[in-house]
């Protein structure tokens, strides 16, 4: 039963994402020139008013990007080491030169995330949870930008009459009709945003060394 709901939710998300108008595809020239094996995710910067957003977001990034075939450093260990080095806020982290990350952690690349949306909007009795983020992958050796991405997931979290037909109604029924979104409710939406950002064909990260499609999926990314 759990698997069933998982599958339904996952493919509904994928199916809906197919309806969104697509922005121009990113340029992958730099990426393939400096194909990284490893990614170091630094604690996210925050453009929203939700103070706990970066800390929660950081718990949702690792699997999404590693599943593209990359070594992703343990995010909390990285955060603690950065704290030890005195980089305790987003300004201090942004000021660290990329080469320093290579020196301290031995990473090939750094993933900078900026949270752009982390909110609940109310439409009469229904509410939408919105999570959005911008991603920037930087080469730790040269500082070159390897990839950028942008993702926004809007999740209907209850109330009747929402669009989406049969599947939309099913999803609405499966999710608690809570009006106030809690941290726990934001997490799956953040995970969804990260999965889409990392693995969307033509927009996400090309397969890395741990992925069976490594070097075989170039056609999708140009």
């Amino acid at each position, binding site marked *: 039963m759990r698997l*069933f709901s998982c*599958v*339904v939710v*996952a*493919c*509904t998300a*994928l*199916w809906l994402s197919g309806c969104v108008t697509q922005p121009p595809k990113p340029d992958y020239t730099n990426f393939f020139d400096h194909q990284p*094996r*490893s990614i170091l995710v630094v604690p996210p910067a925050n453009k929203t008013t939700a103070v706990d957003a970066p*800390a*929660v977001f*950081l*718990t*949702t990034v*690792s*699997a999404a990007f*590693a*599943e593209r*075939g*990359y*070594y*992703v*450093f*343990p*995010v*909390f*260990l990285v955060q*603690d080491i950065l704290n030890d080095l005195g980089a305790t806020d987003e300004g201090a982290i942004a000021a660290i030169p990329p080469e320093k990350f290579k020196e*301290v*952690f*031995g*990473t*090939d690349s750094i993933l900078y995330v900026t949270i752009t949306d982390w909110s609940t909007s109310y439409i009469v009795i229904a509410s939408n949870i919105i999570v959005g983020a911008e991603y920037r992958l930087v080469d730790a050796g040269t500082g070159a930008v390897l990839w950028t991405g942008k993702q926004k997931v809007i999740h209907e979290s209850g109330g009747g009459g929402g669009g989406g037909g049969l*599947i939309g109604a*099913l999803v609405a029924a499966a999710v608690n009709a809570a009006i106030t979104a809690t*941290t726990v409710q934001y*997490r799956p939406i953040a*995970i969804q945003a990260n999965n889409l950002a990392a*693995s969307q*064909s033509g927009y996400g990260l090309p397969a890395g060394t*741990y*992925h*069976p499609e490594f070097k075989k999926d170039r056609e999708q990314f140009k």
Partner: protein
Amino acid sequence: MMPRLFKFTILAICALSVSACLPAKQFYWGSYEESLFSRQQHAGAGGEGEAATMLLATINEAQANNGKVGPGIHADYGYLLFKQGKADEAIAELQKESALYPESKPLMEIMVSRIHGRKDKEKEKKPAP
């Protein structure tokens, strides 16, 4: 319980709508990200202890399922063991991370040597018998 035909139809629609774009998993993750969230929600030794238990379970499950433990899991578990004062067990986990994922080797070596360093210091501190 939903009627079987209904369930089947929904699954079929799903399968058609995403045809072949469901990604296969490269790694076994178990409750790694949940363990991070648990630490985020309960700072301090309590949350860390809980997270360590989740990570150990994840590592054991991966073995039982012949899955490859996801990147960072052995390292994170080792780090938590170190914080709990279990230096030798911590080193063993960090070395497993390094062996499984060579990308982590430089960082794991630094951590292992720091832990050794701290162990030596603690030995010096202890009064001679």
